[in-house]
């Protein structure tokens, strides 16, 4: 049994205090949870909150998916263990963080766009992984409603006003979903004709864009949103899980 210590602050039980309503989780939390759930047989994953990072040193392999709450000592110490480092959003430069990324085996971002951004900041080339998705988690409704959907956290960077302007320009009613359970978001995606996501800052690889595509929505987005790799979506998504766990080893 391979024991993997998973160091993160993206915790599904609401311990992040990330401004989310109870019962809701953000993309980073879902990304971690979904990948852990897809761990192959023979791999045992233990979640380790960032504050308890030293516990990870006891494990066969270390995965780090949240660096925001790690201090320099933590990053430098973990770097020595050559962990898998999988970052879910654009990182702020810090010399200790750069060391961690340089030593990671491998350093993983979320998309080609995200990889380009981190390379610019840290000078480190990364692999990328969009996350684990169940391609059957949502299906298009038999008859879609001629509405546009915006679904995200209510943060200015998530482009809520941009979406409203797009809907105004295109004469389409806009349905807005924020701080709602994942099931609600998926339902609205299944019903909506168009999914609008026009972020104001780089968004590494929004889960919502992949889910909206699975839900049969037309996607309206911009160059700041990381996209999945080109190719048949089911094939691409299954490849994400396979390659991640190969990296973990």
């Amino acid at each position: 049994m391979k024991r993997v210590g998973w160091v993160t602050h993206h915790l599904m039980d609401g311990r992040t205090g990330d401004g989310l309503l109870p019962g809701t989780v953000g993309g980073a939390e879902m990304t971690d949870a979904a990948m852990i759930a897809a761990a192959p047989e023979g791999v045992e994953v233990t979640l380790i909150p960032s504050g308890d990072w030293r516990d990870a040193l006891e494990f066969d392999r270390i995965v780090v998916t949240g660096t925001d709450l790690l201090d320099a000592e933590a990053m430098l110490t973990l770097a020595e263990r050559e962990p898998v480092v999988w970052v879910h959003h654009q990182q702020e430069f810090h010399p200790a963080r750069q060391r961690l990324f340089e030593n990671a085996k491998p350093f993983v971002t979320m998309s080609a766009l995200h990889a380009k951004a981190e390379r610019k900041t840290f000078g480190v080339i990364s692999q990328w992984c969009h996350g684990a998705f169940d391609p059957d988690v949502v299906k298009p409704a038999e008859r879609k409603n001629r509405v546009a959907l915006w679904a995200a956290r209510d943060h200015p960077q998530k482009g809520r006003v941009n979406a409203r302007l797009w809907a105004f320009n295109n004469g389409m009613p806009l349905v807005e979903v924020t701080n709602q359970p994942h099931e609600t978001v998926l339902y609205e995606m299944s019903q909506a004709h168009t999914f609008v996501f026009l972020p104001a800052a780089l968004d590494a690889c929004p889960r919502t864009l992949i889910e909206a595509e699975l839900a049969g929505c037309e996607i309206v987005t911009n160059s700041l949103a990381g996209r999945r790799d080109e190719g048949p979506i089911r094939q691409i998504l299954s490849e994400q899980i396979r390659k991640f766990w190969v990296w973990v080893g």
Partner: protein
Amino acid sequence: MKPAIQWWSNYPYAPTGYGTQTRAVVDRLAAQGFPVSISANYGQQAVVADYVTPDGHTVPVFPQGYDGYSQDIIFGHYVEWKRRNDGAPTVLVTLFDAWVLKNARLEQCDAIVSWMPIDHMPITAEVLKWAQRGNVAPVAMSKYGLGQLEKQGVEATYIPHTIEPVFRKTTGHRDILDVPDGAFLVMMNAANKGVSPTRKAWSENLMALSVFMDKHDDVFVYIHTETQCPAGIDLMALVNGLGMDKKRIIWPNQYEYRIGGYSDSHLAKMYSRADVFLAVSMGEGFGIPTVEAQACGTRVIGSNWTATPELLADDSFLVTGQPEWDPAQLSFWFRPHIASIVEALEQSYNAGGGTSRQAIEKADEYRADKVIPRWFDLLQAVT
């Protein structure tokens, strides 16, 4: 439910493009029942005063700040207006150059609709950065500006500036200026603001006029502006330097001009009397006077750059020029060719002045009552 609107721009009676557009839209927003206030960045100091629209609606005007662009107080006024509307969704509408909007707390506004001039080619980095903000809905005032935003992947919409019904061809005012009956009258109407660069291309325009006037002794010029202004250049010195015939150059009464004493109806008579309107510049976000002049049946000479070409009727005149780097805004202005301005003046002279129906039809595209209703749906859509 209509959102509350706080309109950040010039005082509505300021004799500026921003002032006239503020008045045009705010009057109609108030008439539609939008709770609207004005946050003045020019023209109102010290106290909150009331502006009363022609329909009798009272619109509070919040005073400008100490900072040159009122950035010290812009957010405070927004918060106060939101409070006065019981915390209702509140839209901040900005009508001004976007690059001055530096108050970091503007990120907290529910929504910002920025009616933005784009007068360089390409769009400047600072203006683009503002347009890309998550709570900003950019409204281009020209199709040129919309194209620049869309080229950068920015979701934006287009609403042009407008003119009021007072701007229409009038007759019987040949003696409004003291010029001989058969004189060919060139009119200019431009703010004398800006030293380096002088966006209104005073030296190029006046040098071209100097050449034109030397050739035709029946040419007179009316220049509706301040001859000397701390924020502008000494136009009398330029006229003297060019050796222009001062007897054939007419200026407005400087005191009346300074206190905003020239009404729109008076301007309409001037435009109607003019044989051509000279409006060449280094760049325009829109160019309200070019539309006003055309509404009065007068052809226009303008720069073939940024917003101007789309505003001009086919029988007006576009002048050539070359790009010139603006080191302050880090993009390109337009340096008009003097010879091209002279050529356009000659063409207009040979066309003989008179009333252009094409100009009037073109200007009709920008009538306030036709265009301004777009604001009603937009402001509701963004909140």
